[in-house]
């Protein structure tokens, strides 16, 4: 036998009671909560997996050459361009009358490795023909900027030159009839130059 309450639909005011039925039955309420928890949990798991997968793709340990390295004492490098470290470290060590600077052997056009031609006193890139002088200024070809110079310092203990490959000098060049030029005096400042 059904009671009076059970035969009433949700939302029907119960006679004799001051507060009307809120409109959501108990069954409906728990269904919605169940759906919310269920789908919410599923979406949270999906989102968590997506975030974990994304984070996973960024390695924390790299098997790459070091970016800060020692290359030897200053007296091991004579006047002019030293290309000994081009293959191993992607740098040229250059000594002029005033001291030593380190050029990064990456062409500023599209990243190939130029070659040093001592007879012409020019770096020439084999890929698209960019030409740089001994200071790294662009004197021909498509390169839009001058060669990078890497930061250098002297190790206080053993006196070796320490090169930071990722800290690079990149001044805005002036466009002249000879090419894209940078005032050399402005470049020969620490940490990109060693007065040794």
């Amino acid at each position, binding site marked *: 036998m059904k009671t009076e309450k059970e035969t009433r639909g949700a939302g029907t005011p119960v006679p004799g009671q001051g507060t009307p039925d809120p409109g959501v039955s108990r069954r409906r309420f728990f269904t919605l909560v169940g759906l919310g928890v269920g789908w919410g949990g599923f979406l949270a798991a999906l989102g968590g997996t997506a975030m*974990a*997968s994304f*984070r*996973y*793709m*960024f*390695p*924390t*340990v790299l098997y790459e050459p070091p970016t800060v390295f020692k290359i030897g004492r200053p007296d091991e490098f004579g006047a002019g361009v030293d290309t000994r470290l081009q293959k191993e470290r992607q740098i040229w060590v250059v000594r002029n009358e005033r001291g030593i600077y380190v050029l990064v052997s990456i062409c500023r056009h599209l990243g190939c490795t130029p070659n040093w031609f001592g007879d012409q006193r020019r770096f020439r890139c084999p890929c698209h023909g960019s030409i740089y002088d001994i200071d790294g200024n662009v004197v021909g070809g498509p390169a839009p900027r001058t060669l990078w110079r890497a930061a250098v310092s002297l190790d206080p203990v053993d006196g070796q030159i320490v090169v930071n490959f990722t800290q690079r000098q990149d001044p805005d060049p002036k466009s002249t009839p000879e090419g894209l030029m940078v005032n050399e005096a402005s470049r020969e400042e620490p940490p990109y130059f060693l007065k040794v």
Partner: protein
Amino acid sequence: MASKLLEKVRDGVVNTQVWRSIFRHGYPSNDGNRALIMFSNVLLHLHPVRVKRGAVKVRFTWCLGGLTFFFFIMLAITGVFLMFYYVPDTRRAYNDIKDLQNVVYFGNLFRNLHRWSAHAMVFSVWMHMTRVFLTGSYKPPREFNWVVGVILLVVTLVLSWTGYLLPWDQLALWAVTVGSKMAEATPLIGNAGPFGPQLGMTVNNDIRFMLLGGTVVGQSALLRFYVLHCLALPLIAALFMAVHFWRIRKDGFSGPL
């Protein structure tokens, strides 16, 4: 006379249960058989032309085949993730696994998902086979799918075995050393098996040599197992799974479970 003999041989091959369960049509000498060749090949016609009412009815099942398939998908996805960091080089493999466990973000999660899914897949595939045996579902007309299932079981076990070598630790090395030693005892094509030596089998020309790409478990074996584990065997498994599922659609479930 000769044609009579030829006909007898043909009948001996064609009128067998094995032939008829694989090729379910006659010679393509009429339109009906020509159409059947298309319809009765999963690669040429993915969805069955006709599905029995009972075969599409969703009923209570043990879910063991479905679970096995779920683990396979899980393994394929997590396996791709592991491939981003793992290099099958004897000098790097062990360190790469250690990196995955201790250095790479969520690397241990993906590695363990792969590892436990692999164990679970081997377990569920055995349980699936046991269920099919106990309910007699291997009987005709499902005998063809039982054989496909046995092939899938073997592929699963070989996948498990080849994956076991990849961490390149002591457990892996000796497990595969022992496992491949067994291959030496294969009749005819193993150097320690029956009639192997008589057929000229030695350590560097038998089936174990072919499997390992050498006489010891070394760099060639690691590379071979890696390629088999990540490429060849999953493709073979996927192909047979397609046939397996398609055949279930054609035959229907084996009855009230």
